[in-house]
């Protein structure tokens, strides 16, 4: 069997046990947290009967491995239980809010990668030059600040002071209705429905949170791209290729190919970081996505919702890391399968 097929298959084979481990871990984590969900919901003065009833209703009187198996059975049917706070099935809650968060993540990630690669390559072309020095400074400063603070600065400058950005109060203006739901992402849906006003409004509201996300981490991508390109430029094999007269187009291909592994791995790591950061950004901009949902769930001790959110978020991360492993194995023949 050739290498690409083997790489994919071995990684996929690992997914199942890792997913099981992950779900068990999340389940245990939430179930073992101090604090009793029943008492925190009913209050300390509730009669014992009500407490026992609720406990039985929530299935919390069963042994933990039975609880886990029941949960997994539900999971496989797409049932993550019901949210205590919203009284809706957790799966529905998540489905409603996931697109909003994804829209932020995809745009934020896309711009961060684009800017990072572009500026990184330019910096590497002239090491020690002005662009280079500014890039390093920018990367250091941006990465040292909390992401929510950057969001607040942008709100203060562009909304409060300059008045060019809309209020940080959600995905659309008050008077605007969301477009008919196809994907849940307003940019796509409004284009598909031909609602250009909605599109513009959604874009205006997306601007600041997306800029916050991307500018926060673009610096890290810039730095990594720059140092990778420089390293390759000074490497023995590039020097050798030049010594023996390899065509410039082939040399460029070599450079790109060798730069991919560390950049891909960084990009995926940053995506995982952004998944965590988007929670705080959604708070600042009242986004109404999964991030805000998770915060509200934790604060109201909504264990089902928290479990559901962690399951989804952790599974996405796991898949991302597996994709990264596969890509790495495909590009770099030295990686053992």
């Amino acid at each position: 069997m050739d290498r690409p097929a083997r790489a994919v298959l071995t990684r996929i084979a690992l997914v199942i046990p890792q997913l099981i481990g992950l779900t068990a871990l999340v389940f245990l984590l939430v179930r073992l947290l101090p604090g009793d969900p029943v008492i925190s919901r009913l209050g300390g003065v509730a009669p014992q009967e009500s407490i026992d009833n609720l406990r039985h209703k929530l299935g919390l009187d069963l042994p933990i491995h039975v609880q886990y198996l029941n949960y997994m059975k539900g999971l496989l049917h797409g049932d993550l239980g019901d949210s205590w706070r919203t009284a809706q099935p957790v799966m529905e809650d998540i489905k409603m809010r996931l697109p909003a968060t994804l829209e932020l993540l995809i745009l934020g990630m896309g711009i961060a990668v684009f800017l990072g690669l572009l500026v990184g390559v330019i910096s590497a072309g002239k090491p020690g030059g002005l662009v280079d020095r500014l890039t390093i400074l920018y990367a250091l400063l941006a990465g040292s600040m909390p992401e929510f603070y950057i969001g607040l600065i942008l709100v203060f400058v562009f909304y409060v002071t300059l008045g060019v950005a809309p209020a940080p109060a959600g995905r659309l203006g008050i008077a605007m209705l969301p477009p008919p739901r196809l994907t849940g992402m307003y940019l796509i849906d409004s284009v598909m429905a031909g609602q250009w006003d909605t599109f513009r409004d959604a874009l205006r509201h997306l601007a600041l949170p997306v800029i916050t996300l991307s500018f926060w981490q673009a610096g890290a991508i810039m730095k990594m791209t720059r140092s990778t390109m420089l390293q390759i430029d000074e490497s023995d094999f590039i020097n050798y290729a030049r010594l023996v007269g390899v065509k410039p187009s082939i040399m460029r291909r070599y450079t790109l190919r060798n730069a991919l592994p560390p950049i891909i791995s960084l990009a995926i790591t940053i995506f995982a970081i952004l998944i965590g950061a988007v929670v705080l950004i959604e708070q600042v901009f009242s986004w109404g996505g999964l991030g805000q949902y998770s915060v509200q769930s934790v604060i109201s001790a909504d264990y089902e919702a928290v479990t559901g959110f962690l399951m989804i978020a952790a599974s996405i991360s796991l898949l991302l890391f597996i994709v990264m492993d596969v890509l790495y194995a495909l590009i770099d023949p030295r990686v053992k399968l």
Partner: protein
Amino acid sequence: MATKAGGKGVQGIMRPQVVENEEEKSIHGVILEVRGVDVHFTTRAGTAHVLNDMGFACERGQMIGLVGESGSGKTVLAGVLVNNIRRPGRISGGHVIYKGHDLLKVNEEDLQPIRGREIGMVVAKSSTALNPLVCVGDQIANIYQSHFEVSKEEAKARVLAAIAATGINDPDARFRSFPHELSGGMAKRVVIAAALVCEPTFLIADEPTSGLDVTIQAQVLDSMMDLIGQMKTAGTLLMTRDLGIIAQYCTRVIVTYAGQVVEQGSVEGFFQRPLHPYSKLLLASARLNTAPARRFAKMGPPPDKFKLPDGCLFRARCLVADGPCQSDRPPLLEVEPGHLLRCWKGEALS
């Protein structure tokens, strides 16, 4: 002091003016000529002078063995010959004349067709010279296709032939191998195949056998010499620390010290009668644990490249250095036909 004034003597470094006469060159059969090359490296610790007034010429049919200690600038010289010295190094003076053109004045775009095709290179660090992410066959094919407009299939066929010619047993399997899967000797052979697949006119072999087991060394060298013989390679520069290799394979010897040529001559002449004190020490200490070898070992390192001394660069280790050696740097002169020497005491010694 015997000097060859004027520009007729082909190895005479004392030339009054630059001769770019193509005709004259081909009459005398000089393929590559290096004149007065200075290379320095600018670092935080200061400026290191790696090559100082380096010069020699290679005629058609010659196999020149260049001897130098580690760190004497052999690899830098290899880079100079194809004008590939980059930050923090700089070529500050001199000429590298190949087929009538001074390569040091040719721009990067025009150098590409010469590198690898006209002037081939076997590099010293063969395992790191290969791109770890591309299979070695493709890498050699890329080199070939950078110089010849051929189809992928034909390139692959040529590469397979080149790999087989270096004595590798299963060319097909090796074609698809990646650099990390190859042993040191295998990697060396791949680099040799890459150097010879384009059938270069001039070949530079930088330490082609360092780091190899003694048994493999002989095999690799023999395969390389066979290939050179078969192809149209007109001249070879073999850089090594191993005098034995030079004795066995080369026709001429160049001895370098501190980035300069100190002696140059035919192999027979050199081994029978070395003239420079350094050459004598080298030959005497070829036998380990003898008195000369031990004396040599006690002498300390070559001069500090950051602060080259006045006068002769070898005087710190020289047994016969005196007056003029301390103050003036000796020029490279032809003391016998075909035998050059850079030493004030040359006459007395010869």
